[in-house]
């Protein structure tokens, strides 16, 4: 019995410690993006508060707390310049959690901290979409819930195992409900409002410019650029060029894409077969989509084709997206080259690369026909001692001259740049295309993995009567590069050899893992309105739309609630089949018939005590039965033999009616 008012809400050391643990676990996933001083501040706040609490002191006084809070929030704002966006928002929340911890006095303060922990978990999921992160954060929220259960108890809290189990039970019961909500809650294609993109992943992959050495760095990367699943036939390796930024402007060293080409797209005549595929793009913080050369259909409403056939969308790809695209790998121009484009794609910087210009003039005199000239240049790469290496010597401002005549060692970017320069110097329109080439087939799940190491640069040359024709000068140097990918051409020469061999030793496991990752991406991360409609169709609802999805959600929620109510009702009454309970009820009925009704508030033993007073003749047998009942029902062990004995004894028990009514005195 406890008379103490439940207002004893003072925070204890244990509660504080557990809340600190939960907060630390939630902060751990944000640690990489938080300023170091902020983490230190939060840690110090927690440590100070814990130390004070361990010695039985209250929180620091209000002026000190206010000063610390204002100062740290100001510093954070000066550093970030904004509190908008996920990174800044989580930084602010983390700081507030630490400050709140410092001033924690009552249970209500801990409640606030617990809410912040929940929100930090969610914020982490806005920045990363890995399965393991979700699992980890669900575990953190479960622990937080268990902690909450412990400190929201006004009375003696249950022990850890029990509260963890109870929090787990509530979480488990929440899962079906969450599933229905997740499956059928309406999704929006466009965000409700734009938030600053805060670099949810570092910028990797191609950029809209190319200097010597740029792609070399990509080739060293282990990251995945995108995955492709072909519906139907797969184009041959020599035609799998994934088109990225097309570069037009050259300053002698760097190729740039300086102007957006959002005007009329010159028509193309499709020559070869049509390929259909789904691209699963990793975020790369640019707006282009790596479609197979040359795209002619896609399912992203806001995506469009530039006049140099890049597939782009207005927004940056800061989140993984899936796009269905169809492409022709062989095309022919249907229109002549516009003068603007011709001028742009034959322009060269005047004072740069003089030796190259000289070479071009000489070659052009020998080969007046454009195609002959192109072949002569390719021949040059093939005949001359050009080497293919990931560690090319550094180049200066006249990069093409230095490469063609001095170093003769380079990567795809060097060759593409030199080739385009030679073309332009001869008056032939040419441009550099960057993108990816090839890919690794995942035989475990029928899709291709295109990694950053597949990054490539090639050229397109305008040939009258044919249009833009792709030439890959790198293949003239190391033909194996085009056929087998980077690994094949580098095995002998590079220090990378060991790494790639190790990877190939692992590759089966890696491919399987990647297949799972892709499944996760397709089914979970990529779940959208279309998937909802497909889901509805698959459960037999024709022509699904938003309204039908909402109706299905309503039905689903009702079913889950009925299930939940049933679950809870089931626990409401004791197991009616329990023979001990039934026997006890029978005993009470027999005694009631003998004039000794059990009062509603009487437990078994107090009932027995009253029986012993009112009917001393029944005291011993009823007392024994009731004691046995208590032990069977509330005791730790329940031996079936003891239960049977009890049932048999109750059956045999026959109380006589009282011989005479006892009269009350007075």
């Amino acid at each position, binding site marked *: 019995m406890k008379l103490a008012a439940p207002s004893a809400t003072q925070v204890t050391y244990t509660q504080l410690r557990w809340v600190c643990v939960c907060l630390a676990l939630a902060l751990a996933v944000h640690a990489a993006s938080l300023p170091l001083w902020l983490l230190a501040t939060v840690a110090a706040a927690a440590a100070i508060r814990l130390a004070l609490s361990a010695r039985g002191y209250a929180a620091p006084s209000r002026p000190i707390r206010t000063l610390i809070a204002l100062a740290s929030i100001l510093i954070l704002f000066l550093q970030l310049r904004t509190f908008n966006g996920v990174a800044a928002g989580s930084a602010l929340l983390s700081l507030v959690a630490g400050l709140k911890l410092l001033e924690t006095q009552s249970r209500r303060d801990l409640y606030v901290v617990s809410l912040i922990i929940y929100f930090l978990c*969610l914020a982490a*999921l806005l920045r990363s979409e890995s399965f393991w992160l979700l699992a980890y954060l669900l575990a953190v929220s479960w622990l937080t819930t268990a902690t909450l259960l412990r400190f929201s108890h006004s009375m003696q809290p249950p022990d850890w195992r029990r509260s963890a189990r109870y929090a787990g039970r509530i979480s488990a019961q929440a899962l079906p409900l969450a599933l229905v909500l997740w499956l059928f809650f309406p999704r929006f294609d466009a965000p409700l409002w734009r938030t600053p993109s805060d670099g949810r992943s570092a910028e990797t992959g191609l950029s809209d410019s190319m200097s010597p050495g740029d792609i070399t760095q990509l080739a060293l990367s282990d990251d995945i650029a995108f995955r492709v699943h072909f519906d139907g036939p797969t184009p041959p390796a020599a035609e799998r060029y994934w088109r990225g930024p097309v570069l037009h402007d050259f300053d002698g060293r760097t190729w740039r894409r300086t102007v957006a080409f959002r005007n009329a797209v010159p028509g193309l005549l499709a020559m070869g077969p049509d390929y259909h595929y789904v691209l699963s793009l990793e975020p790369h913080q640019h707006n282009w989509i790596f479609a197979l050369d040359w795209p002619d259909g896609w399912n992203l409403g806001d995506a469009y084709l530039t006049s140099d056939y890049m597939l782009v969308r207005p927004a940056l790809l800061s989140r993984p997206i899936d796009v269905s695209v169809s492409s022709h790998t062989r095309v022919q121009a249907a229109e002549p080259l516009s003068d603007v484009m011709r001028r742009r794609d034959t322009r060269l910087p005047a004072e740069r690369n003089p030796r190259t210009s000289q070479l071009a003039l000489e070659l052009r005199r020998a080969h007046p026909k454009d195609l002959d000239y192109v072949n002569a240049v390719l021949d040059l790469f093939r005949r001359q001692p050009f080497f293919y290496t990931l560690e090319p010597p550094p180049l200066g401002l006249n990069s093409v001259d230095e490469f063609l005549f001095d170093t003769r060692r380079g990567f795809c970017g060097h060759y593409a740049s030199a080739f385009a320069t030679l073309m332009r110097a001869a008056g032939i329109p040419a441009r550099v295309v960057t993108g990816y080439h090839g890919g690794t087939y995942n035989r475990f799940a029928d899709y291709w993995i295109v990694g950053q190491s597949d990054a490539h640069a090639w050229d397109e040359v305008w040939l009258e009567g044919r249009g833009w024709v792709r030439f890959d000068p790198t293949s003239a140097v190391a033909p194996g590069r085009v056929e087998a990918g980077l690994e094949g051409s580098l095995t002998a020469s590079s220090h990378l050899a060991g790494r790639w061999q190790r990877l190939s030793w692992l590759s089966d496991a890696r491919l399987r893992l990647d297949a799972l990752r892709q499944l996760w991406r397709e089914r979970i991360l990529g779940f959208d309105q279309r998937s909802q409609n497909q889901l509805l169709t698959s459960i037999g609802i024709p022509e699904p739309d938003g309204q039908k999805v909402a109706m299905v959600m309503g039905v689903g929620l009702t079913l889950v609630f009925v299930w939940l109510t049933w679950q809870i009702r089931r626990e409401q009454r*004791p197991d009616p089949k329990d023979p001990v309970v039934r026997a006890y009820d029978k005993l009470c009925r027999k005694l009631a018939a003998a004039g000794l009704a059990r009062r509603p508030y009487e437990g078994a033993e107090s009932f027995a005590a009253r029986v012993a007073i009112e009917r001393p003749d029944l005291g011993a047998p009823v007392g024994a039965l009731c004691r046995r009942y208590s032990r069977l029902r509330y005791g730790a062990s329940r031996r079936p033999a003891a239960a049977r004995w009890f049932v048999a004894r109750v059956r045999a028990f026959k109380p006589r009616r009282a011989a005479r009514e006892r009269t009350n005195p007075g």
Partner: protein
Amino acid sequence: MKIERRRIYILPTRFGLMLVALLVAMLVAGLNYNSNLALAFAFFMVSMVLVAMHHCHRNLLGLTVDVKVEVDAFAGADAIFYFMLRNESAVDRRDIEVRLGTVEAMQSVATGSYEEVMLAVSVANRGVSRWSQFELRTTYPFGWFRAWTYVHSPLTAFVAPSPHGSRPLPAAAAAVGESARSESRGDEDFAGLRSYSPGIPLKHMAWKTLARGGEAAVRVYSDLGTRPEWLEWSSLDGLDTEARLSQLCRWIAECESGHPRPYGLRLPETDIPPGRGAAHRSRCQRALASHGIPAP
């Protein structure tokens, strides 16, 4: 009585409202960033809150509560109500708060078990205090929701006057007078001791008991013990109503203390025939408590 489903109300607490705001923020963030994982987490939290609401409701649902609806008390002290909470369900019920007026107490009841909750309501004045209902409430499990129910069971506290007064028991006074007349009283008449009250002649004091360190007591004789004592309103001239009631209450206590003897109570509107024991005492005290107070 058993708590019915329809009688249970449930609303979020202040903490619960903060949580609801957080859930809305989570949903908006998930939708805005179009992140399926964030949405999954947000929906998980929403569902957990809904399940917790069910559990909070369930914590009261089907609980059986019984209370002795009439209790006795003395003015200036506490009226004490005992609530018997019985949990016949297969799960523990935790943190059940019983509230009567402004007084509350909390109790957990394990599965298949029962617990008693005591509420001490302080009552200042003599009279009959009535409550039309009491309240059971709980914020279990997380303090996000408060479920409560009103149990419409009229509770009554008969607040007897606090026992005061210095007048001796009428019969004692008479007995003392009688013993003064016949000094020679045999030992066989000696019936026992009862506690001393002012006004009894000193020669009846049990000096030996006092000398041994016991309390002040007076010797009583057998005829004193068996003859019913009539505690009469009319015998207390010169006192106001409350003082008369207090004196009567004190007399009742005196008759019941030590070696109890039968006594009857005569009030202007009530006559209670002589008797003794807890039930009789309670009857008499209730008569005092409700003197001059109309029945509801």
